[in-house]
């Protein structure tokens, strides 16, 4: 049964991948293509966040710091020194991964909600610093020059190449996540999330593995930030370092399903679509109606499906298994009760 569910999962992912490859050919409207790019980019951020926030259970609300670092690093290198953005993007990722050690050093000594609050504080400090930093454009921000375009300079006049870039980056991030999930690191991260004291008793250096998760997460978040800069051609502290951005990364994961591979992708499809739809339909009023509706929908989802879309779906599958089991044989009643208990338990987590 496990193998059939695994095959189903592979089949579903292949269908999704095929759909992602076909979308640019089918979608002609520039605004819908832009929505698709936004979905992919938010999904990539959610998947990155999920490494430390989902698997390791360290809910960071300061990831915008890494996003901004990436965006600023590649843009400054390009603007000030003419460094190719491909190199700049990589440097931004590495810089964020290195600086995340300081981030982790200061925040990981706190647990749970206190950790989350500390991450907000660190990210706010970073934002204030960039707002005051004259060389980095301060509050005015930075423009990415359009003088050299094409794949070599990761700079395009049309949207389509950004779609491929966002898709490629998402796939790479997913592949790394998939590898982590299956390696011993993935097991260690889940152990740290479930029972940190017990994890230590079996030799897991929890500080080290939390930091490894944070550094990998920071690396990919920063690359997402660089991509944003190359796509929007303009960054300022508010657009790449705001706490709202950090919250969005966490929300995408939480709504989709924390600690699952595809949860953040599903979360991004739901959340980004709602966000953009409410903005286009209700955004013109200038009274923030779109934000109110957006927030209300998030609350509704969080109240009714606390385990996210993936958790909700798994619950349905479990219930179906349970029903077939009780229908086929009465003698298996006890085992199905155990499965039912597991399903209920899974729903509560």
């Amino acid at each position, binding site marked *: 049964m*496990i193998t059939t569910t695994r095959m189903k999962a592979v089949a579903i992912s292949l269908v999704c991948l095929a759909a992602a490859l076909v979308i640019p050919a089918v979608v002609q409207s520039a605004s819908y293509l832009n929505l698709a790019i936004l979905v992919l980019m938010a999904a990539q951020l959610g998947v990155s966040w999920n490494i430390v926030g989902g698997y390791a259970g360290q809910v960071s609300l300061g990831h915008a710091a890494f996003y901004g670092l990436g965006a600023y690093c590649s843009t400054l290198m390009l603007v000030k020194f003419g460094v190719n953005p491909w190199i700049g993007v990589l440097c931004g990722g590495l810089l964020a991964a290195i600086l995340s050690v300081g981030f982790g050093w200061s925040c990981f000594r706190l647990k749970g909600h206190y950790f989350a609050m500390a991450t907000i504080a660190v990210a706010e400090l970073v934002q204030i610093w960039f707002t005051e930093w004259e060389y980095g454009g301060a509050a005015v921000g930075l423009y990415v020059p359009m003088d050299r375009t094409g794949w070599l300079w990761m700079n395009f006049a049309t949207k389509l190449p950004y779609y491929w870039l966002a898709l490629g980056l998402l796939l790479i991030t997913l592949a790394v996540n998939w590898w982590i999930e*299956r*390696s*011993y690191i993935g*097991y*260690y991260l*889940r*152990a740290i*999330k*479930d*029972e940190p*004291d*017990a*994890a*230590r*008793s*079996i*030799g*897991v*250096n*929890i500080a080290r593995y939390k930091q490894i998760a944070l550094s990998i997460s920071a690396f990919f978040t920063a690359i997402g930030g660089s991509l944003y800069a190359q796509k929007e051609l303009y960054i300022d502290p508010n657009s790449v370092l705001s706490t709202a951005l950090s919250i969005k990364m966490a929300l995408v994961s939480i709504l989709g399903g924390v*600690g699952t591979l595809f949860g953040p992708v599903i979360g991004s499809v739901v959340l980004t679509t709602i966000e953009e739809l409410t903005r286009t339909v209700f955004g013109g009023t200038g009274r923030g109606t779109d934000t109110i509706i957006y927030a209300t929908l998030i609350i509704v989802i969080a109240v009714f499906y606390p385990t996210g879309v993936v958790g909700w779906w798994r619950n349905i599958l479990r219930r179906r298994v349970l029903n077939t089991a009780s229908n086929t044989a009465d003698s298996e009643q006890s085992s199905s009760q*155990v499965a039912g*208990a*597991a399903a209920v*338990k*899974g729903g509560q*987590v």
Partner: protein
Amino acid sequence: MNLLDVSHVSKRFGGLTANEDVSFTVDKGQIVGLIGPNGAGKTTLFNCVAGYFPPSSGTIMLDGQNIAGLSPEACARAGVARTFQIARTFSSMTACENVMTAAMLITRSVSHARASAMRWLAFANLEHFADKPAASMTISEQRRLAVARALAIQPRILLLDEVMAGLNPSEVKQAVDVVLKIRDQGISSLIVEHVLEGIMPIADKIIVLDRGRKIADGTPRQVSSDPQVISAYLGDA
């Protein structure tokens, strides 16, 4: 030579002395029971040996290496495994994954860890639970799962914190059987226990703590006739 040599260990929390000048030894393959009334300092001593609290003074030698003050993960690497009063199984994992995670201290390969985990599950009579979520298992099963998990790091000594508490007589027997099998593997056990019927028949040595001090140390028969032990358990006449 003694496998574990705890000598003159004291642990103070501010003005409160939880352990004072406690010394004892555990030989290779021995089952040693650590008993005493509530608040005697058993769990504190246990936490000192496992690295969860650094002792205020004294040394804890494991096979010639001083492990006093090492972190829990360093103690685990040195060969000390432990269980907790509440099982603390990894609730998002299956039974097999719980044990696999521990086996990964020995091998980073997931498939090797799985093979090792299945052996330890069988050892604790839990092989048919391998794919069950740990959270769906009974307390007794989760305790044995925690023992299997602790054994998967291939320790030289296993510290068991009240594995038998709250179990019914047949479950106590299952737990006792597992402890005896552990001794057959050449692994020493240090067992904090309230269930004296469980520990007395199988222990090679019993150490009795009262108000942080060691008041008796000997075979179960010697200890149970010791007047100091009787007065500690029953109060002064």
